[in-house]
């Protein structure tokens, strides 16, 4: 009895306790203690290295990094993977002073690290150590940064590992989906979206890494940051002594290649019959962080699919139980667009319905305003968690360095926070309408379609394409010679080797030979009297001999046609048959076309002789000659020079310089050129479009207007 009473008293007491606890809505929060973010010190060394430093004495550690403007976006087309290999072998391949293995022993015996890497749009070397080892570790850090040796054994090791990595790239279904989605939306033929193959790795040699490192690792291209337990004045003096003597100079690094905004709507299905789930990625290109609409887009993306309280989690996970992982975000980059990406995985049988529901949810974002609660939660989540951007002093330093690297204002984060605060439901609806394009969605799904059940993907009424996940086996032929190998060859062999390098750089001999016709539109400017005139040129070629060229010039239209033997010319003066000298000029023009020259080793009657390590002279059976100089860094034909005889006057030398190379289908072609005659600029052209193998017909080309 007594015991029972005691028990009930306890329960009663517990009940009393329970009443004292407030509802969460009634809780009042004191203002958050404000901590002024630390202010890093910054200065520039005389050799151009920008330095940011921040002291933090909590733990006896010092860390730092050299951020270098480089990236795999600068990979040569035929040596994709060069940046990555260079980045890892800088450290593993050792320095002049020490082998990589000696550095391993040295660092691991003091629990320190020095690491190097090159990613998509940045690279660098970092270190981390106990403060008493700082001098020693900084010495190794500097050596790895400025003086890597790229020892052959480590080059071979890294290449073996890269090849193994390629062989394993289809192991993870989720990984396949993420990779293929990114490649699709950025474009498979661009440095943003191409895939590294065995042949690429096999073509990379030590010399390439030495050259890549030399090109990008120089003081003016480096931002150095140092963090931890040191005195700033002492550290500054130390860095000046250590790095002051590094005087490498290189031309300014160009901007990264732009991302072309092209939609790739449709479904791409990667088949794996050994998985029970489908991994999917849905979306299209996103935008930039400094886009004025970014805060509203970020809020829209969050409400759609970020965190446990988002619409997609609520619908797809909580209500339907279709997925464990489901998320969406408006991806934004500093200088190039991120991806607007919805990703997750669901059991095979609910694949189609999940994609359907996702598209429906995106559509809802575009048709009705989000609720006040949704807006408040999404904004509060950003605003209230803002403090976590400052919870470690190192975050402030790192942010500042990244902003400096990409040219963003130092207070960008604060601007962003203020902008988020101002976002309205109307803003969210507006940006969702303007920037989410479900009809343009690229949908990549990797799974087992045999188990999709009663709802195949075709029900989505979007074309379904099959993803080719085959890993191309390495080519049996010997890899094309590198610049250094070329230097050791005799003239003729050497000529072919240089040309071979150019063919690879332009996309490979097979692809070049596959070009049957070429349609080129060009805006031209040329010297007319003492001023520059402009015009338009539309050239249609059927290789090897046929050319039709229509020009709009200030003095009227000039159209020319030649099949290699005969032809006509139409000018304001009327139509006439080609005179032999003009016919010859046109034939020479066809011979000197970039693609025609590039395949010279396969054309009977042509010879290819080396002039120097990067230049060949090509002669045809008619005795026409052209010299082609390759860019030593890329292997691409950058200059074509030849002698020409004007209608009146003495022969003059013409030099054509080609730049702005971009991929067209499988082939690299120049989009800009300049022509010099007798050492003076004569004309320039900007190609507005190339079309390869559009099916040009002789009878159409020969038709007079």
């Amino acid at each position: 009895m007594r015991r029972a009473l005691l028990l009930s008293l306890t329960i009663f007491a517990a009940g009393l306790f329970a009443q004292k606890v407030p509802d969460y809505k009634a809780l009042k929060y004191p203002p958050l203690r404000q901590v002024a973010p630390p202010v890093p010190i910054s200065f520039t060394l005389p050799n151009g290295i920008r330095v940011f430093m921040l002291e933090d004495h909590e733990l006896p550690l010092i860390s730092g990094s050299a951020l270098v403007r480089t990236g795999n976006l600068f990979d040569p087309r035929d040596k994709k993977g060069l940046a990555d290999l260079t980045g890892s072998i800088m450290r593993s391949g050792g320095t002049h002073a020490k082998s990589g293995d000696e550095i391993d022993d040295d660092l691991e015996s003091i629990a320190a690290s020095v690491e190097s890497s090159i990613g998509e749009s940045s690279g660098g070397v970092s270190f981390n150590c106990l403060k008493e080892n700082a001098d020693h570790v900084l010495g190794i850090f500097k050596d790895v940064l400025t003086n890597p040796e790229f020892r052959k054994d480590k080059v071979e090791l890294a290449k073996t590992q890269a090849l193994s990595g390629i062989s394993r790239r289809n192991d993870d279904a989720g990984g396949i989906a993420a990779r293929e989605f990114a490649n699709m939306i950025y474009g498979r033929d661009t440095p943003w979206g191409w895939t590294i193959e065995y042949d690429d790795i096999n073509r990379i040699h030590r010399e390439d890494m030495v050259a890549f490192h030399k090109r990008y690792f120089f003081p003016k291209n480096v931002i150095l940051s140092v963090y931890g337990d040191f005195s700033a004045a002492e550290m500054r003096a130390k860095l000046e002594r250590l790095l002051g003597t590094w005087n490498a100079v290189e031309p300014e690094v160009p901007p990264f290649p732009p991302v072309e905004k092209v939609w790739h709507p449709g479904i791409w299905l990667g088949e794996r019959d050994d998985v029970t789930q489908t991994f999917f990625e849905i979306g299209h290109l996103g935008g930039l962080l400094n886009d004025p609409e970014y805060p509203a887009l970020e809020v829209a993306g969050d409400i759609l699919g970020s965190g446990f309280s988002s619409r997609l989690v609520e619908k797809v996970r909580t209500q339907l139980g279709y997925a464990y992982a489901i998320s969406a975000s408006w991806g934004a980059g500093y200088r190039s667009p991120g991806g607007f990406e919805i990703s997750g995985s669901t059991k095979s049988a609910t694949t189609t319905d999940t994609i359907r529901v996702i598209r429906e949810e995106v559509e809802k974002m575009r048709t009705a305003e989000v609720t006040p609660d949704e807006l408040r939660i999404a904004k509060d989540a950003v605003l209230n968690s803002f403090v976590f951007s400052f919870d470690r002093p190192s975050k402030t330093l790192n942010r500042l360095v990244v902003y400096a690297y990409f040219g963003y204002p130092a207070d960008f984060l604060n601007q962003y926070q203020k902008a988020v605060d101002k976002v309205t439901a109307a803003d969210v609806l507006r940006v969702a309408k303007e920037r989410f394009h479900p009809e343009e969605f690229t949908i990549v799904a990797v799974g087992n379609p045999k188990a999709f059940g009663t709802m195949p993907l075709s029900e989505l009424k979007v074309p379904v394409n099959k993803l080719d996940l085959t890993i191309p086996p390495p080519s049996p032929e010997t890899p094309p010679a590198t610049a250094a190998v070329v230097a050791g060859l005799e003239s003729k062999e050497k000529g072919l080797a240089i040309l071979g390098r150019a063919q690879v750089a332009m996309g490979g001999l097979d692809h070049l030979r596959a070009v049957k016709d070429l349609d080129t539109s060009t805006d031209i400017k040329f010297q007319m009297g003492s001023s520059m005139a402009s015009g338009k040129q539309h050239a249609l070629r059927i290789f090897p001999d046929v050319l039709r060229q229509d020009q709009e010039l200030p003095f009227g239209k000039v159209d020319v046609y030649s099949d290699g033997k005969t032809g006509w010319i139409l000018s304001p003066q009327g139509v006439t048959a080609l005179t032999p000298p003009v016919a010859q000029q046109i034939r020479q023009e066809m011979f000197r076309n970039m693609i025609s020259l590039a395949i010279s080793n396969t054309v009977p009657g042509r010879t290819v002789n080396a002039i120097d390590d990067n230049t060949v002279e090509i002669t045809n059976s008619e005795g026409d000659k052209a010299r082609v100089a390759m860019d030593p860094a890329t292997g691409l034909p950058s200059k074509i020079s030849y002698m020409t005889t004007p209608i009146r006057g003495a022969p003059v030398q013409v030099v054509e310089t080609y730049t702005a190379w971009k991929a067209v289908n499988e082939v690299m072609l120049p989009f800009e050129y300049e022509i010099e005659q007798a050492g003076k600029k004569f004309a320039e052209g900007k190609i507005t479009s190339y079309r390869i193998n559009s099916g040009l017909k002789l009878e159409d080309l020969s038709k007079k207007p």
Partner: protein
Amino acid sequence: MKLGSWSGLVAACLLSSIALLPGQSLSDFEKTVTEFTLPNGLHFILIERHQAPVVSFNTYVNAGSVDDPPHKTGLAHMMEHMAFKGTETIGTRNWPLEKKALAGIEHAYDLLDAARAKGSDEKTIATLQTGLKEAMEKADSYVVPNEYDKIVEENGGAGLNAGTAEDATNYYYSFPSNRIELWFLLESERFLRPVFREFYKERDVVREERRMRVESSAQGLLVEKMLLAAFTEHPYRYTPGGIAEDIENFRMPEAFAFFKRYYVPANITIGIAGDVDPKECRRLAEKYFGRLPAKPAPPRVATVEPVQTTERRVSLEHQEQPILIMAYKRPDHSDPDDLVLDVASEILAGGRTSLMYRELVRDQKVALAAGAQSSFPGDKYPNLFLVYVVPNMGRTIEQSEKASLDLIERIKTRIEPGELERVKTKLRAGLIRRLDSNSGLAGDLTYYHVAFGTWKRMFTDIGEMEKISGADVMRVAKKYLVAEHRTVAWTYQPKPKEGK
């Protein structure tokens, strides 16, 4: 000290240079820690770090998948998911009506189960299924979806999540420090009066998680197969993800019974690290967590794994590139050899100076990657010392196994002084690097407290490790890394199909 004079000297120098620095010796660190146990048995560890106005929380529940009832594998994990579903006041539009509707679901489910057991005709089953569906829809009409998560997110919570392992379940996130009381309220409510709403939909989500983590990955499937071979009795033979058929048949009252039994204050330890006032924390702990009724702590798993006497070998055909796992039986974390095994795994596979990296990856180029883990899948009960190899393209499982076994033989007969010193230095420095993260500290200290009875073990282990000699490492390698206690598991690719 058992070390020879030369290596002892090196060790002493390094030790003094690291240990004498301010802020990370045990005596300095101790000043920032406050501990207390509530009358109901719930233990708190507070770590003060006032650098920034943020706090990280970790609730360590000393129950994991080893505690899953028989034929209910995955139930601890299911319970973890339900802890985000809200309470009697959070996540509901009308609790009294929702409560009735939830009971209605169970009733309808019971009727359906009974009819199935009886072998009733399809029409009856279909009617009962419709009844169950309607009962669920009714209950759903009272739900405010994901309200618990929303409260955390809108208040700036960061890193909200939980994890179920074999030995324990952890719940964690961080808040700006002015919202400490909100954490006390939310966390105590979910363990005082949780509501397991939307249970059957969440069961599908848990099933999906298993498909994603295990069924869609060769590694996931191989680990599952390896554990089934290595353990014949002990629940370590099942992964926290559970068996598909078990998950598909979970019932809500089973999960609730698991909660009642294992989520008792005496079985919970909470770590809070960051910008906290210990006095205020204690007041809030008493106010909010004092409400949890005291109950006896649940028992440990009693099953003892029989001694393994012969090597076990299992393999799995899979399209993915091959992988190899070798697992050796070892004792639990309370064994005196525990730290020696940690050192052995570091010598074998810790970093670029380790034996496996140098031999397998660098010199022989057998492996793309190789590693070792001294305890797997948990460490509360006797478990496995794991070695794994990812072979390079064109290299075989046989070559990988042979090369790994050679190295395991090597550490039975020879440990270079330099190898041992490097590992000790690294583990010492590793401790310092672990001290700069609130969430890391909240997690680490609760683990050490539960596993060893005191968080101080995290620091004193380093001193104990200093005493380990090369002879100790050779001795444990000889004792544990032997063929009869080994399970070898690997994947292989199917032969290419004919005519394709």
